[in-house]
């Protein structure tokens, strides 16, 4: 520390100069990036509730990594259990077969299929969130709306299935919605 001290007059003069400084300068417009980040976090299921700890540096990268890892692990387990679903070229037909032959497939198989699709999609959402984070570019509003519509449709089919759990058509449509969501996410990420 310096031993020098300013006189009261010098201090006051300096403070006066500091006080006269402008209190703002034109900032680059970052709103679209901020909005995109917040929406991406929301879409990937991030907890948008209060993060009152202003000191913590919870980066987006930290957020998606455990989520993606969990999704990969769960997906791998599910694929191991229902391996035909894994083959992408015959994916749709195999799934259709799965749900059109209720006598050979239990409810747990359907539920596992849905769970694996959900987990796979959550992985894509996590990746998308990371990409948006890195690129600083927001998601196209039309694409965002499509994803929103797909999730809404999924909720509706899932709700209807609660009333009619054995309805094969509803099961098929629900799975199709998840597949469409995944294909769209794959396109966005590619």
């Amino acid at each position, binding site marked *: *520390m*310096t031993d*020098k*001290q*300013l006189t009261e007059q*010098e*201090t006051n003069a*300096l*403070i006066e*100069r*500091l*006080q*006269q*400084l*402008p*209190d*703002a*300068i*034109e*900032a*680059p417009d*970052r*709103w679209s*990036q*901020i*909005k995109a*980040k*917040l929406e991406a976090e929301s879409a990937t299921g991030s907890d*948008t*509730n*209060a*993060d*009152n700890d*202003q*000191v913590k*540096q919870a980066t987006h990268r930290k957020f998606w990594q455990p989520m993606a890892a969990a999704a990969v692990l769960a997906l791998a387990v599910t694929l191991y259990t229902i391996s035909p679903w894994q083959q992408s070229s015959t994916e749709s037909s195999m799934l259709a077969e799965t749900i059109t032959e209720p006598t050979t497939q239990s409810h747990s198989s359907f539920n596992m299929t849905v769970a694996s699709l959900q987990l796979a999609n959550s992985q894509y959402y996590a990746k998308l969130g990371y990409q948006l984070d890195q690129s600083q570019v927001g998601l196209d509003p039309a694409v965002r709306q499509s994803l929103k519509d797909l999730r809404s449709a999924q909720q509706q089919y899932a709700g209807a299935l609660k009333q009619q759990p054995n309805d094969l058509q509803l099961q098929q449509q629900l799975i199709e919605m998840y597949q469409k969501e995944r294909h769209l996410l794959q396109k966005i990420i590619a």
Partner: protein
Amino acid sequence: MIITLQAQPIEQKDLDNQAQLVALAKQGDMQAFESLYRLFSNKIYLLCVRMTGRPALAEEHMQDAFIKAWKALPNFAGNSKFSTWVYRIAVNVVLNEQRKNHIEIYADQDWQQAFEDELSETHHPQQIDLEKAIVKLPAQARNVLLLHDLMGMTHEEVGDTLGIASGTCKAHLSRARVLLKEQLDR
């Protein structure tokens, strides 16, 4: 007490509007939050520029501050002004970054030119010199000076924010003012 960042007279209707915007944003209204961003981003940006000396870094910090503010909004009790609250968030964002990656300003010709360009529309030349002198202060002295002399925090508040004793804060402030004057007198 000096509160330069809030030195402009604020009318009651402006405060009411701000309170309304904050209330809406707390409920998740993104448009209201955008309005708050438009109201305060220029001030937050200048604060970050002063703390970092680097406009590009300041831009990132400003963005992070508003993202954190959005997340923390549900817990904003309204005990202080929204502006004060969001300034604190920005200060913490920059301080956290400084703790992780402490980088001193290398005040070469390119930096000086870039810094001057950034301030040229709002500052006259003497004010730019003062801003440059502030940025060139050692980090802790600069932070204390900014928080105390420009943001109007008390020594106790500055001490809490920076994690130092208020006596140390006073010493840093005294040193910062001496160094600042020396730079300006050169």
